[in-house]
């Protein structure tokens, strides 16, 4: 039962600076952020405000310039299988079959072949993908690849799942299905999720709590608890509570996007505002 109390993410006074000299960019400043064990938390904000940077710090790809991020009290020093990561781009290994992809983390952990095969099968069954276990990723649709990406990240039983716009490349229809599958998986595994999206409806539908970030340098502008009960249903997206919250978030984001555009106009270049097309926040790779 101690599992239930694991997966606490705490970011304290995080600052991220990329580059040096005239190319210096303060991406994130003074960010405090907490994800409770088993909680689903979304991070939204204008493009380039440092969302990916924060997630990459949690994943261990980027070191914060100042402050610290801990998972269950232990500072993150590098990537590891205690934190599952789902990327926006498809990141399945094209040379491995679907099942071998899911087994990868267990294989690295030295789990015996028969055991990891059966775990992978169980997980694929839950995601409704068992029939495709021997396919190669290139034989599957984008939605399926992303589902397998989630399953693969969950296979090593991480305490937290970090997701950077995992459904960004999918069409609306597939997205909706993926959101339900993700909710199911999350409830079944009872792990903490830090989820980045630029889709406000998605963040409200999925989250217990939402952090809204300011434009660069990114700080926490607002922290909003989603008052909707669980389980969430598609019908809920029509309720006044849902619609009001979405509108409130939209206003907050618009303010920030406009201010980002304002400052970029002054500094002589508008780039990637509105839709999140910023670089994938790969800072100093650890």
């Amino acid at each position, binding site marked *: 039962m101690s599992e239930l109390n694991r997966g606490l993410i705490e970011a304290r006074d995080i600052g991220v600076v990329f580059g040096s000299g005239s190319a210096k960019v303060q991406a994130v400043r003074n960010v405090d952020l907490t994800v409770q064990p088993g909680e689903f938390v979304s991070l939204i904000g204008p493009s380039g405000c440092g969302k990916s940077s924060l997630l990459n710090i949690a*994943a261990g790809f980027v070191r914060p310039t100042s402050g610290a991020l801990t998972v269950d009290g232990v500072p993150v020093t590098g990537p*590891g299988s205690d934190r599952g*990561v789902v*990327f926006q781009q498809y990141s399945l290994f094209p040379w491995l079959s679907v099942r071998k992809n899911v087994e*990868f983390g267990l294989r*690295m952990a030295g789990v015996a072949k028969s055991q990891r095969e059966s775990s992978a099968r169980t997980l694929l069954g839950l995601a409704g993908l068992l029939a495709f276990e021997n396919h190669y990723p290139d034989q599957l649709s984008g939605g399926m690849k992303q589902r397998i990406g989630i399953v693969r990240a969950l296979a090593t039983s991480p305490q937290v799942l970090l997701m950077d716009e995992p459904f960004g490349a999918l069409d609306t229809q597939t997205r909706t299905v993926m959101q339900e599958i993700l909710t199911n998986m999350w409830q079944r595994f009872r792990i903490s999720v830090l989820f980045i999206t630029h889709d406000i409806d998605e963040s409200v539908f999925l989250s217990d709590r939402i952090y809204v970030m300011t434009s660069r340098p990114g700080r926490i502008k607002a922290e909003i608890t989603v008052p909707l009960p669980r389980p969430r249903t598609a019908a809920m997206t029509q309720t006044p509570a849902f619609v009001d919250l979405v509108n409130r978030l939209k206003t907050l984001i618009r303010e920030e996007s406009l201010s980002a555009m304002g400052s970029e106009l002054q500094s002589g270049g508008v780039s990637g505002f509105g839709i999140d097309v910023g670089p*994938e926040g790969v800072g100093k790779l650890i």
Partner: protein
Amino acid sequence: MQPAPIYLIDKAPPTPPEKAPRSQPEAAPAAPQPTVRPPSALLQSIADLAQRKALTMLLGVISVGSLFLFWYVGTRYQLEFYIRFKNIPTPWAVYEEAVKVLASGDFYVNVAYSLRRILSGFLIAILIGAPLGLLIGQYRRVREMFMPAVEILRPIPAIAWVPMAIMLWPTSEASIVFITFIGAFFPILLNTVHGVHSMDGVLLRAGKCLGASEPRLFWHVILPASLPQIFTGLTVGMGVAWVSLIAAEMISGQYGVGYYTWEAYSLVNYPAIVLGMITIGVLGLICSGAIRLAGVIVMPWLAFAPGGRK
């Protein structure tokens, strides 16, 4: 199976009659396939397939046939038009030479020598070139350490190494293998480096998050991700290795098909020259075919890759 050829003939008028039956086995499996398409559409598609295959075959025959025709006409009438066919043996003379030579053991000894040299040189080139390429591709410091030297040595053709190789190595056998190695090494090395560089970085990050340590990352992620490029390097490397081998055998060798060909020239045995050339061509073809086959076996997933193998 039965109605197809009938349809095929009136559907594919340019198909020469002797070619049509050859394409039948290709088309046959489609016939019993349970399909909702109307029979006429099915027949249509069989006919289309047969037509395409037949056309491919026809063009292939024309391609090779005109080569032989040119050779035959040139030697038969001893054409003299800038190029001189006076001393060139006819296809028939070469055939007779082949029959004679294939019955004796010497020819096989030559082939065996060449194959042994190419395999040794090529294998050593893989064993050194691929791992070094992975390290150079992955680590900046290794790259900075090796690439300047590589850039200086790379433009020197393997043939230019012949005198140096003879001085360097105690036996001519070793120096020929060394020259073959030099020919294969650089294409393999540079393509491997390129393979690592063109790898999608997200795969590396995915591997790290799934708990892969650095050495395992090499084996389980970087190597398979670079395999397609490595195989490109192998294909190119094999071609260059043959060029280098033949040149080395002609200059410094004893035994080998290159030596055989040059020897034939010295002994004024002209049909043997052509036979040597054909042998070199066939062996090269077999070697590159073997690499392609190995690629298909080692990288089955490429059959599904977008824009991958056709």
